[in-house]
């Protein structure tokens, strides 16, 4: 070093910093050339890249969502209700000077000759839409233009899917209930199209004035009534305040923020998931940084001692290394941003098509800063503490090489890392609780890994006397290095766990998830089967080879009281519970427990239950609404009260696509209430004619084709898991870095030991065996622990996040132990190869 930053008292502070910066940059170049900083830089790069990729993608989605937000409703505010909107509400809105337009949404079958198709019908009144625009075109896939108003009476606008399903063209006639309509235009877009992700059936837009002529809306029909409102913010707020207190059960106000809730929720969940996946890579990369920084620091003890010896103050040492590291962080961060920017295109490719707008807006520069900051926080938290210890290197080390820095307290070393992790999690997850959960999970995993590793390392100590020289040496090394080996096993374990999670456990989870939706799952529902049609429909299906079709009675009712205590939406905080109490849900009766139902508390029907009024409640509903076994429930069914005691709680597989019910009664209890029947069955592609025949024979029966929905669900499963896998590639890279850093960490010691062993006359094979013994054992320990952790994590994910039974697999254990032993053993040998091939004298004198 040309000059030492000491006698600079006369210079200004700025000059001093500048001088130190120059020195730091020179040191950076030198350390980079000697390869010491590469692991550190790579770990930082991965951390920044993973956050940047997810950040850029989320930013694009956010932009797309916000750009469309005002148009999502077709209005500024909407009153929605299952019954016709009360005129007093509409009057009140008009009094505030708000524009209004009426809508009715319902489902119906559209017929054209022999062809039929279930459609989502929207009947619009004049003025619709109040915000945004309808886009129409004259022919399928033709150029779209904004529509002027709504369809004229007698006309419908339909989307292309309906035309192709019915084999019709613009200008042809279709039947909707008892009405006849001419297809006038192709509807290409509407502002309030129901969540694009989940829209099942093609859209028909008709004039509200035509609805009575169809005869489709009868008392009890499922119709969503919507009154669109638009106007000045003040007027809207005034109306909202006025209406809020006057809404009746079932009536809802929806603002722009509630729009496209399901799409928004799904995307937000996906974004959060991706964020967390990115953070896992960051934390892993942090571990890599910590290990690499420790080694970097240890290798600089000598030069620091010399610097101190010639008069560098502790402050100078700290500034020097801090600046060197910051410079590295900037460079690695920039590279990480570039990689992340490139990677987000892939992510958009995978997930972009789930959004209705095919092209996402270009990413803004906003995510740059958070990604860079992530890099800095990772470096500060994980990398700086070991480097700061450098200032504690005593100058006396120049004379006595055995002197190192005074041992720092554990808190000083790992406190910043924990703090950095927490800060990142809270910042990215945006939620204290979630952040604490994840942090607790990671910390718990590390602690358990550490304890287990420590125990295993101790246990190895007992073995050392019983094996040959090479193995004894390797085993002794692990046991002797106690804490160091524990750290190494934990680091290797984390890396291996990431690998196992990403390969085996992930594949198992996905396979399990897919298996929960088998290929022959019911894909058609029949609803609105009248009691006198039940026998006929069953026979009809039986004749056509659908043998085991079960028909269930269905009565709609609303829960009004639990144990004589009246319940309403205000009694619950949870939004799902509020909704459940607000709306009617399906009640049924049966004498036989359904195949996929399981009693989890209480007992199935006994004699006398029918007379007493017994009920079996789905456990999720019971949990949400606070219903316990033996509670007395009161329902309002078709205007009449019904009381029953809960005699059992059931678990239900909701995603089985079979008909299932929240509350089931024994037969007899619901006899006096009006019921319709429901069934579901699987129909393969070639059997579609069955449906046409059925509808012709039983016109009032409604067929729901959920094939499209199921495919959509499958597609979402595929895409979300692909996206997460994609982000997990970074985690994988981070895991590999940790593995590499952990092996690198003790390389110097091992070179020394190999040299000594060979000096004392050990053949290379012996040295190699001892290295292999040590690394393979370390790898085996780490692998087994990693398998345990991965299995546990997989189990928790399966049972608590994805909600299905986890199957234990021996492969995770075999692979964990095997990969750990072979991989770490070979990697360790490769790392020590140069030391083995060098004459021992040179190795000894270099160290």
């Amino acid at each position, binding site marked *: 070093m040309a000059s030492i930053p000491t006698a600079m008292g006369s210079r200004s502070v700025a000059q001093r910093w500048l001088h130190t910066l120059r020195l730091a940059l020179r040191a950076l170049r030198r350390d980079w050339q000697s390869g010491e900083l590469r692991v550190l830089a790579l770990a930082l790069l991965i951390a920044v890249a993973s956050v940047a990729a997810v950040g850029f993608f989320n930013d694009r989605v956010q932009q797309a969502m916000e750009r469309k937000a005002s148009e999502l409703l077709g209005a500024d505010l909407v009153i929605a209700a299952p019954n016709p909107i009360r005129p007093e509400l509409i009057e009140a809105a008009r009094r505030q000077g708000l524009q209004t337009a009426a809508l009715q949404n319902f489902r119906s079958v559209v017929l054209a000759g022999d062809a039929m198709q279930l459609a989502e019908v929207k009947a619009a009144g004049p003025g619709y839409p109040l915000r945004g625009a309808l886009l129409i075109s004259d022919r399928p896939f033709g150029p779209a233009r904004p529509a002027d108003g709504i369809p004229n009476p007698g006309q419908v606008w339909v989307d292309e899917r309906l035309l192709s399903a019915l084999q019709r063209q613009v200008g042809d006639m279709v039947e909707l209930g008892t009405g006849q309509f001419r297809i006038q235009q192709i509807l290409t877009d509407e502002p309030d199209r129901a969540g694009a992700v989940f829209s099942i059936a093609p859209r028909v837009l008709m004039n509200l004035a035509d609805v009575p002529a169809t005869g489709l809306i009868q008392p009890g029909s499922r119709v969503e009534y919507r009154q669109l409102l638009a106007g000045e913010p003040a007027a809207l707020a005034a109306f909202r305040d006025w209406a809020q207190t006057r809404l009746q059960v079932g009536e809802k106000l929806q603002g722009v923020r509630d729009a496209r809730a399901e799409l928004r929720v799904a995307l937000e969940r996906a974004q959060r998931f991706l964020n967390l996946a990115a953070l896992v890579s960051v934390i892993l990369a942090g571990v890599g940084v910590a290990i690499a920084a420790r080694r970097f620091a240890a290798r600089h003890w000598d030069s620091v001692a010399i610097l101190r010896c010639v008069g560098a103050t502790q402050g100078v040492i700290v500034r020097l290394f801090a600046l060197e590291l910051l410079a590295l962080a900037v460079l690695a961060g920039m590279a990480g941003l570039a990689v992340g920017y490139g990677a987000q295109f892939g992510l958009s490719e995978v997930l972009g098509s789930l959004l209705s707008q095919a092209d996402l807006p270009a990413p803004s520069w906003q995510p740059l800063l958070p990604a860079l900051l992530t890099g800095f926080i990772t470096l500060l938290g994980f990398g700086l503490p070991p480097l700061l210890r450098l200032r504690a290197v005593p100058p006396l080390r120049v004379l006595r*090489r055995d002197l190192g820095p005074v041992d720092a307290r554990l808190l000083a070393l790992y406190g910043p890392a924990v703090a950095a992790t927490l800060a990142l999690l809270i910042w990215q997850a945006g939620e204290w609780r979630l952040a604490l959960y994840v942090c607790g999970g990671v910390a718990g995993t590390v602690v358990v890994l550490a304890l287990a590793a420590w125990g295993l390392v101790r246990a190895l100590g007992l073995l050392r006397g019983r094996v040959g*020289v090479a193995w004894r*040496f390797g085993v002794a090394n692990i046991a002797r290095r106690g804490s160091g080996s524990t750290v190494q096993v934990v680091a290797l374990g984390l890396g291996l766990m990431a690998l196992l999670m990403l390969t085996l456990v992930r594949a198992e989870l996905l396979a399990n998830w897919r298996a929960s939706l088998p290929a022959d799952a019911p894909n058609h529902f029949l609803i609105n089967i009248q009691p006198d049609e039940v026998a006929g429909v069953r026979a009809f299906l039986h004749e056509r080879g659908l043998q085991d079709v079960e028909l269930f009675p269905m009565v709609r009712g609303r829960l009004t009281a639990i144990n004589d205590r009246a319940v309403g939406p205000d009694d619950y905080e949870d939004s799902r519970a509020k909704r459940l109490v607000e709306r009617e849900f399906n009640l049924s009766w049966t004498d036989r427990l359904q195949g996929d139902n399981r009693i989890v508390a209480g007992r199935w029907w006994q004699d006398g239950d029918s007379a007493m009024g017994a009920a079996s409640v789905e456990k999720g509903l019971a949990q949400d609404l606070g219903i316990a076994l033996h509670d007395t429930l009161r329902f309002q069914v078709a205007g009449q009260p019904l009381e029953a005691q809960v005699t059992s709680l059931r678990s239900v597989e909701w995603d089985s696509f079979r008909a299932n019910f929240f509350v089931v009664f024994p037969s007899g209890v619901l006899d006096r209430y009006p019921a319709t029947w429901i069934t579901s069955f699987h129909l393969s592609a070639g059997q579609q004619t069955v449906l046409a025949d059925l509808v012709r024979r039983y016109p009032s029966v409604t067929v729901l084709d959920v094939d499209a929905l199921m495919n959509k669900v499958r597609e979402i499963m595929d895409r979300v898991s692909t996206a997460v896998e994609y982000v997990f590639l970074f985690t994988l890279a981070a895991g590999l870095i940790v593995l590499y850093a952990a092996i690198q960490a003790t390389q110097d010691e091992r070179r020394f030991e190999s040299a*000594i*062993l060979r000096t004392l006359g050990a053949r290379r094979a012996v040295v190699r065996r001892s290295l292999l013994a040590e690394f393979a054992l370390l790898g085996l320990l780490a692998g087994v622990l990693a398998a345990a952790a991965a299995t546990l994590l997989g189990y928790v994910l399966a049972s608590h996040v994805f909600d299905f039974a986890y199957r234990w697999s021996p492969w995770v254990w075999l692979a964990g132990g095997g990969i750990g032993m072979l991989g770490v053993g070979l990697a360790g040998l490769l790392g020590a190869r140069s030391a083995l091939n060098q004459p021992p*004298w040179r190795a000894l004198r270099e160290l």
Partner: protein
Amino acid sequence: MRVDHEQGTGSGVDPSARLAVNDSANNIMIRVEDLGKQVVSPEGPLVILTAVDFRIGRGERVAVVGASGSGKSTLLGLLAGLDAPSSGRVWLAGVDLGALDEDGRALLRAERVGFVFQSFQLLPGLTALENVMLPLELAGQADARRQAFELLERVGLGARARHYPAQLSGGEQQRVAIARAFAGNPDVLFADEPTGNLDQKTGHRIVELLFALNREQGTTLVLVTHDTELAAYCDRVLELDDGRLSERPPARTAGG
């Protein structure tokens, strides 16, 4: 295998084997001929040793002295087969080191050579006892543990057998290193500045111990040092000056 110029060819007998017989018969433990060592440094090739020739007889105690950078340690490394020469040859216990591969040299070391280093070079992962056992085990000796323990007792550290190097003082570590060096009765013991890291008093004790064991076992001792007092314990003194070797008589005879 290289052809031995000196002994001629065509005899059909392995020349180094024949030489071994000769050297043994002549009681020569180390023979060095025209030894040279160059390394490539950033400023170009650097000559460390040139045309070094000498012989050391069985049981002799030889000090190699010289200024820093005169090539003392390099020479020691070459004598022990820890490094390869650029030119010339070394016979150790009658065996041509250049004719052996790395593992062959390791085997030779395991059987015949002991080391004491300036910085002790004990393995931190092994106890004092295990450190001493190491060469015995590498040589495949059955009762390594007993022998090692006896040696530790001999150097006065029987009570410390289960300690790790970090738990021992510098002098104690060097005594362990000496016990390790003498384990397995080596023919030759190489010592590289054995007192360099120790205070004078401790250093003195170490020297006494080293020479006492040397006497007991009749070991050939090659000692690199710049300590003239230490050199005076030896039978012969070889001086290295800028890579060239010359022999000078010991300053005074001490100890025997």
